[in-house]
């Protein structure tokens, strides 16, 4: 599995990725859209956002995500 940007987030990432991959292939693709793994995701995400802030790329990230790429260029 790939590494996280924050070494301290690796365990949380692994737990979340494992949960997501299972949900994605066994539920989502089969038409069951109810989300799972949300608690794991919130913990992992909080850790990542903290690491992003420490590396001072949080502002760049916000700037890059200002526009929704799929609505501003619909049809692509």
């Amino acid at each position, binding site marked *: 599995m790939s590494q996280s940007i924050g070494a301290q987030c690796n365990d949380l990432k692994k737990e979340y990725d494992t949960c997501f991959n299972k949900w*994605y292939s066994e539920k989502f693709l089969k038409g069951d859209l109810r989300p799972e793994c949300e608690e794991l995701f919130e913990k992992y995400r909080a850790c990542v956002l903290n690491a992003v802030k420490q590396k001072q790329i949080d502002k*760049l990230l916000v700037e890059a995500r200002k526009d929704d790429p799929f609505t501003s260029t619909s049809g692509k």
Partner: protein
Amino acid sequence: MVKFFQHTFKYEYNWDSVTLAFWLRYPNPFTSHVESVDVIDRYVDPNTGVLRTTRLILKRGVLPKWGKGLMKTPEAYIIEESMVNPKTQTMITLTKNITHARVMQVEEWQTYRVDSNNHEFTQVKTEARIISNLGWGLTDRLEGFGIKKLADSTAKSRKGMSHVLEMIREKQLLRGRGFLTST
């Protein structure tokens, strides 16, 4: 100045497997320069049933030697936006660099669909755009480099995906025969 790149490829795997491989494609032996991959946002749109994901990817060593002076750090942060529609069996992804964008901005779109001739195969269309605003004759060189690099990295990412797909197939075969009971 802007340059474009377009490419179409067919994976001999079904759409479900290819889109799963997209999530699992790092690490693989062909992309050692990828240092980290993180999910920043992810949700299923309740109105459309589409899975939306934003990932942040950190890559090392993205420029050739003559370009090193252009950047303070040789690392690049890439943002990857994606949408997966399981009903229409369409996955659309957009990746772009968020650091060094003044030197060169690369935007790459990919569309994954079921192959119309063989439903067990998957068609991937790649479209990329490279923009740079540097003067001093560097722009042409950089953009030329960008196109070459894109062609290289498209080939590499194809190999990486195929590698991951082969692993998925093996795992499914084993599970199908009862050798594996869980993921």
